[in-house]
Each structure stands twice: as C-alpha cells, then as structure tokens.
C-alpha cells in the first residue's frame, strides 16, 4: 500500500522541521538562563565578599559595645543595635495579635460582602505602598497627633503598619492551606466558629503564620526609609528608652556612615552591615526552626 495514496504532494517536502537549528536555539536559550542565575548569584557573592573584606577588620568588641563617634576608630553600634532590637520587639508584639486576627477574620469569618471585598483589596493595595510613605503617616499620626514623639515606640508602630499587610497576606495563605476537613471535624464535635478556629485551624496554620511574622520582623529591622521621617537620624551615645527620647537604628546608622566620603567610614558601615546581616540570618534561622517544630504534628 502506498503511503501517500491520498496526497498529490509528498508530505516529506512539506515539513521542514530544521531540528538542528531549533535545538541550537534551545541550547543558546538554556545558556542564557544559566547566565542569568549566574549573574544574580555572582552579585550576591560579590556583595558579601566586599562587605566582609571592608568590615571585618573593624568588627571587634569595642565596635559592638561602643556608641557613635566623630572618629571612625572610636565608633560603635550598641545604641543602634539596641534601638533596632527594641523596634523589632514592638513590631512583633503588636503584629502578632493584630495580624493573626485580621487574617482569621478575612479567611474564616468574612462572607463575600462588598465590605469584606473592600477590606481584602485594601490590604493588597497597602502592600504596594512605598515604605517611605508609611513614614509620612507615622510622622503625622504617631509623632504629632498622638504626641508619642520621635521615639522607638513611634518607629515600631509605624513599621508595624508597614508590615501588617504582608503578614496578613502570608497568614491568609497559611489558613487557606488548612484542609476543610479540619474545620468540618471541629464543627462535627459541636464547636462554635471561634472554638473551631482556635482548636483546629489556628494550630494547623501556625507554622506558616509564625514564619511570616518572624520574616516580617526581619524586614522591619532592615527597613530604613520610613524611620528617616520618625527622627531616627539622631546622634545617640546612650542606650535608648523606647518611650522617651531620641534613638537610632542599625540601617540608619549605616546610612549615616555610608554617606561620608572617608574610607574609614565605609569600613565601619561595612562592619555594621555584617552585624545587621547576621541579625537577619538569625531571624531567618529562627523562622526555619520554629516552622519545623510547629509542624511536627501536622501532616496531611
């Protein structure tokens, strides 16, 4: 039987797959993909190497325990470090209940009314507002209106507003991942909605939620822009009081030093960068450990 019985034209001449050429462009493309990732990783490595080479010589006990100084050799970061930690704690303490509560409302309680849709849309839009604008809000509301002054408390509350949308979105994600069977199981035992949430859904979602909150704290600690407006740009030689008096934080301290032209200031800026990166690393590790511990008993 002829293979081309129904055709006047030999199909072999009608397809020109040019496989070699197509494969070649695929290989080139793959090369480009590898290059792209290579560039990114290289940038990361260069950044770390540059910071370590500059900063390590300056990183000693005096640097960790000293205050700022006009002379790089005498400068230290203790007030800034303590300021950052205090800000981070305030953010964590306020975000924890408010963020979880908002996420629970939006995912477990809210019906599909327009009010709730507005709430939801509003939160995702807030996540896209530039951080410096939160600084302006904090300046107007916390510093001036509520008369909290340019304090660590104002800074912490401002950063809380900044990261809340992120935390809420991450927590909603974690709540969504809890299978419905968990909820029905609790309801079947006669639980009210809140009992169901507290007893069943929240524990199941806690690894994701806690990870989200810790990562958000890390982000708050690394954030500088809004605090410029909350007066973090101070020359503080003493350990700050969170509720009164001036303060500074690590990223602002770094900014201050990095702006100066002298090489030695670049050196101590790099040393402070090492400290803040280690802080980030610790928080990330903490998030990982907590996630692992909390999810030990969860499996579906």
């Amino acid at each position, binding site marked *: 039987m002829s293979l081309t019985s129904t055709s006047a034209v030999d199909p072999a001449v009608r397809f020109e797959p040019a*496989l070699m050429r*197509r494969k070649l*462009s*695929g290989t080139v*493309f*793959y090369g480009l*993909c*590898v*290059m*792209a*990732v290579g560039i*990114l*990783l290289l*940038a*990361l490595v*260069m*950044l770390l190497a540059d*910071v370590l080479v*500059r900063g390590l010589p300056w990183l000693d006990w005096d640097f960790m325990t000293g205050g700022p100084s006009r002379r790089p050799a005498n400068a230290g970061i203790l007030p800034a470090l303590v300021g950052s930690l205090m800000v981070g704690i305030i953010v964590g303490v306020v975000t924890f*209940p*408010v*963020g979880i*509560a908002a996420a629970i409302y*939006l995912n477990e*309680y809210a019906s599909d009314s327009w009010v709730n849709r507005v*709430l939801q849309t*509003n*939160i*995702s*839009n*807030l996540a*896209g*507002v*530039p*951080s*410096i*604008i939160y600084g*302006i*809000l904090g300046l*107007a*509301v916390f510093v001036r209106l509520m008369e909290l002054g340019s304090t660590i408390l104002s800074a912490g509350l401002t950063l809380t507003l900044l990261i*809340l949308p992120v935390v809420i979105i991450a927590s909603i994600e974690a709540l969504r991942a809890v299978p419905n069977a968990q909820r029905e199981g609790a309801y079947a035992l006669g639980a009210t*909605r*809140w009992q169901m949430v507290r007893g069943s859904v929240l524990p199941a979602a806690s690894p994701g939620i806690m990870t989200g909150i810790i*990562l958000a704290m890390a*982000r708050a600690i*690394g*954030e*500088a*822009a809004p605090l*410029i*407006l909350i007066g973090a*740009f101070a020359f503080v030689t003493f350990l700050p009081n969170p509720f009164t008096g001036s303060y500074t934080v690590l*990223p602002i301290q*770094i*900014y201050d030093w*990095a702006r100066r032209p002298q090489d030695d200031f*670049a050196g101590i800026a790099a040393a402070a*960068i090492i400290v803040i990166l280690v802080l*980030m690393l610790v928080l990330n590790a903490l998030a990982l450990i907590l996630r692992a511990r909390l999810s030990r008993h969860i499996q579906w």
Partner: protein
Amino acid sequence: MTSVPVPLTRRRPRSERVIETLLFLSAALGVLTTAGIVLVLVFQTLEFFQVVSPVEFFTGTRWSAGIRPYAWGVLPLVSGTILVATIAMIVAVPVGLLAAVLLSDYASPRVRATVKPLLETIAGIPTIVLGFFAVNFLAPQVLIPILGKQNIGTFSALSGGIIVGLLVTPLIASISDDAMRAVPRGMREGAYAMGATKFEVIRKVVFPAAISGIMASIILAASRAIGETMIVSLAVGDKPQLTFDPTESVQTMTAFIAQIAIGETAQGSVQFKALFAVAATLLVFTLVLNLLSGWVVRRFRTEY
C-alpha cells in the same frame, strides 16, 4: 446516666460576637491606614498648593528646594524616578524571566530548592546594604573603570538603577516561576507530543499560558523600583535634573523626601510641604501600577 437535652435553638453566645467584632476591627485597621495616608497627603498637599501653584508644580521643569531661587517643577524628580526605574527594569526583566524559566523548567527539584531561596535572599537584604554596594563597589570598581572617569561619577542613575534592578529581579523570578509552574504538565506534554523542542514548549506554550502572572510580577517590580528609597538616596545622588542620560546624577521623588526629612528643614516651611506633594505624586504612580497589575491578572488569567 440521664443526659440533659441541649436546646437546639441556642443563641450565639455573647463572647462569640465580641470575638468576631475584635477580629473585624483588626481587619479594618487596614482601611484606617489607607484613610490616614490619603488624608495626610491630601491636606498637606493642599497646603503646599496655597504657596505654590499646581500648574508650576506639575509642569515646571526645574526643581530647586535647597538653593534660591526656589523652583517647584516636579518633572525633574519624576523623570529621575522614571529613569532609575527604567534602568532597573532593563536589568530585572530579562534576568528575572530567564532565571524564572531556569527554575520552572530546567532545574531539577534539588537545584531549584537551593537556588530559589538564594535568589530570594537578595530581595531580603536591607536596601541600605544594596545602596552601600552600589556606591562602594559597582560605581568605583565596575562602572568607572568600564565607562571612564570623565563619563560617569560615583553617583549616577545607572549605578542606582542597576542595583534597584538587582533588588527587584528576585521578585520577577519568583512570581514568574510560580506562574509558569502552575501551567499544568499536560499542557507541556501536549506540545512535546507534537514534536516541539523544550525551548518551543517554554516559549510558545508555558510562557503565554503564564503571561498574566508574569506581567503582574513585572508591574509589581516596577512599582517596587519606583518606591525604593535607600538605594537611590545613596547611589543616585541629589541633583534634580530633567535628563534621560543614565550616567548623570539625578534625584528621584523618594530621594527628595529622604533629603528633606534628614535635613534640618523646619516643619512649616515650603520645603517640608513640598515633601508631601511629592509623596502624593509618588503614591499616585505606585497606585496606578498596583491597579494595573490587578487588572492584568484578571484580564489575562488562564483557567486551566
């Protein structure tokens, strides 16, 4: 043992309603935040417009807040912002998308599990650190040697733009990777079954199918680039000028806000009021981009 029958029409206990109200208030805090931002910016901007005419502000091509004669044309700040963001996107879009393809379609699960967190680490670095990297490494050790001392200085839109690009690249890579991985395997197999090469499957099936997520990631990255403050205020300089030359020092809207806030500017001064007007302009830019990304997701979404 006798059991007491539970009334089946029991009212919802008060505590339940109190809890629900508290939860609702937490969720509504976001609306308060939004309202706060809008009110503050609108009022202060209106005050600014009593001193400076909106026409001058929106159409003026000179901005000078520090040196007399003062000039309040916002266009140089807008052009500076757009220039930096454009450079950032020129870096971030190709690199981010190529990285996303590598993660979604080429990398083994093990490679992916290592590389993706590493890339996301870049996005997690405090931006002040990235700004430091731009001023102390990229400009003096890469850009100046390549382009020459007479062509580019320590502070330039290029240096800041590249680093802002580095910052937002992981965002594009990560979201686009998720979007491409959400394209069902069956769709890829359908293309393979017709004799498509891997590159063709990616380019002609996976990429178009994931386009809504990819475009949303790009818009989000652009919005992030426009709002970025610390990198630009360190690396780009503080010279507001209407130029699209990437080797020039410019000033962005965010860098201006930071400059005024750091300086010893009196809070009632024109300069300080100008800060709010610029912030309002910035917010409008990012808001438009955010709305656009939402629209893109809805308009181009593929239901599998």
